[in-house]
């Protein structure tokens, strides 16, 4: 079941939570709504669920307008960040709840409810907890029960609000891989909200990056990461270095270095910034024929298999961060305080004050 969001607006007092958002989320895919806190992603999710009503705009499920359909009749599954399990009910009763509140004429009989609940508990690998209370489970287990409970009513769409936000790092990594596999099994159209870019990139089929209530970019994780549409997306998806540059005729100059910037072929001359990710900076032991920037190594930190460098280039205010494999670092024979040359392998140049429209790549 696809979800279409048309010109949705929502304000809370003076605060614009969702600013004229239109999106189309394809059937059977797992979409991540990614953004910093206050970006409107949770509000948008709650509007899709029917927990909030938009000030204007429409929500359609598979072409059918559901904007005014009450949350109880909308047929969505929702997983809350803090699980929202019923504390006084056993795990079994929690999962069975959605089935037991159905009107009598369409309610499955007891044996059928039991069969379906146990099947779901097996799906989330927690069938052995059926008779426990939620308070006797760990955070990760509670979240899996919350998911089983949401799936029990066979929802048309599954919505997850920061589903792993309350868990510690190790459990979250495990659980998100598990969610990906689970989605591959059941293929229900799913939307999940997260502020963690790694989570969004790892788990989802599509990523929608939001900021200040607007959609900054949407696309596959690869598209969004490799071709950020604007400086915000660049900064939000991972670490990035900024180089002051002069943009002229499709080229960007940083000191003596010239980088190609074909997207600004028409810009005659102006200030701009080149965005380069740390692992896209090549470290050289000596000056390269094609040009490189001299830099001093201010700090070396070895993190497991890779090495992170903090470098200062001449006339540069900000430190440049670079990352390279440990073997390569050893090969170059670099040391803290030493001199080196750096060269961006790929970059994306944005003009000063440029904000791209939220359209794709």
């Amino acid at each position, binding site marked *: 079941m696809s979800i279409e969001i048309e010109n949705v607006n929502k304000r809370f007092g003076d605060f614009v*939570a969702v600013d004229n958002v239109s999106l189309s989320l394809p059937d059977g895919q797992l979409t991540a709504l990614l953004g910093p806190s*206050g*970006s*409107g*992603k949770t509000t948008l999710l709650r509007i899709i669920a*029917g*927990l909030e*009503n938009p000030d204007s705009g429409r929500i359609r499920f598979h072409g059918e307008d559901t904007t*005014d359909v*009450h949350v109880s009749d909308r047929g969505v599954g929702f997983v809350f960040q803090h699980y929202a399990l019923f504390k006084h009910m056993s795990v079994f009763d929690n999962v069975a709840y959605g089935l037991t509140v159905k009107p009598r004429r369409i309610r499955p009989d007891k044996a059928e409810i039991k069969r379906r609940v146990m099947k779901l508990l097996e799906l989330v690998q927690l069938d052995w907890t059926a008779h426990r209370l939620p308070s006797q489970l760990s955070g990760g287990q509670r979240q899996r029960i919350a998911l089983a409970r949401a799936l029990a009513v066979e929802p048309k769409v599954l919505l997850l609000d920061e589903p792993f936000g309350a868990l510690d790092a190790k459990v979250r990594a495990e659980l998100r891989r598990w969610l990906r596999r689970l989605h591959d099994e059941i293929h229900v159209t799913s939307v999940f909200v997260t502020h963690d870019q790694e989570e969004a990139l790892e788990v989802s089929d599509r990523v929608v990056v939001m900021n200040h209530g607007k959609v900054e970019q949407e696309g596959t994780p690869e598209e969004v990461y490799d071709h950020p549409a604007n400086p915000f997306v660049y900064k939000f998806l991972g670490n990035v270095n900024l180089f002051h540059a002069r943009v002229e005729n499709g080229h960007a100059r940083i000191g003596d270095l010239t980088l190609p910037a074909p997207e600004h072929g028409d810009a005659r001359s102006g200030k701009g910034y080149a965005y380069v990710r740390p692992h896209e900076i090549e470290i050289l032991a000596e000056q390269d024929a094609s040009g490189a920037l001299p830099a001093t190594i201010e700090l070396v930190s070895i993190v497991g298999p890779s090495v992170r460098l903090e470098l200062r280039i001449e006339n540069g205010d900000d430190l440049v961060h670079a990352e390279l494999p440990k073997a390569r670092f050893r090969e170059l024979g670099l040391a803290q305080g030493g001199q080196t040359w750096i060269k961006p392998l790929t970059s994306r140049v944005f003009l000063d004050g440029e904000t791209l429209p939220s359209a794709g790549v």
Partner: protein
Amino acid sequence: MSSLASENRAPGAAAGASGHKLAWHRATEEPAWLRRVLIGVALSFLALFLVLPLTVVIYSAFEQGLKVWYDAIVEPDAAAAIRLTLLVVVIVVPLNLVFGVVAAWAIAKFEFRGKSVLITLIDLPFAISPVVVGLIFVILLGSQGWLGPWLASHEMRIIFAVPGIILVIAFGTLPFVARELIPLMQQQGKEEEESSLTLGANGWQTFWRVTLPNVKWGLIYGVILCNARAMGEFGAVAVVSGRIRGETNTMPLHIEVLYNEYMFTAAFAVSSLLAALAIVTIAVKSFVEWNDERAQGAAGLTGLTRKTP
């Protein structure tokens, strides 16, 4: 919001944004009519049981004018009852204040076995009928009680005298300061005290300059409540006082005497003083809570942003 929107909607609801807002209601809200009914039921119940009795006290006290009200209060027996009541609270409230602070310190700042038993014991006077409290002291100290003969031989009179009144009121109002302070001080933890001590302050300085300012408002409410309950204590005093007019009648006993003698206006005049005290008490409580909420609101802005991420 366009022609697209109205196509799929019932004709009556096609008025746009305002139209569908009426139809939509939040998952955690009841329909407006039910809200109004519930508010109506709650307010009627409270009006019937809280506002009307209070109004009748004030109305009846002043029904015949300020002069009559004033005369009823300065009349010698009434004045004696007021003096006795004040004397009792001047003794009882400081005693229970000291007890409350000391007990709260022991319970909130230390871990020891039997703590929950101790807390239950402090609650005990809440559960015991005031009449039984009076009886307990009559049995212990009355002329036919355990210590009665010994007291008589030393010419000491406790029951049917002021000391007995003080004892039963101290018993009845024992929990109030402690019950306010214990949860407050437990919530504060002991880190602030520990850091004060590591900075070189001694125990007294730590108590006066760190602990006390933190629980100041709770303490004030505890004292005011203890005071109101001490002045209003009735059942226990009725058993031990002997109702000697002008001597062992506290204000509530004097009200009973006046009422039974059909001097209704005078009874309500004295009552109006105690009712005013009750109103001051709940006003202080309300202020303390409002103060708390404000402090928490200033400290916890993160809680507010959660709703609109």
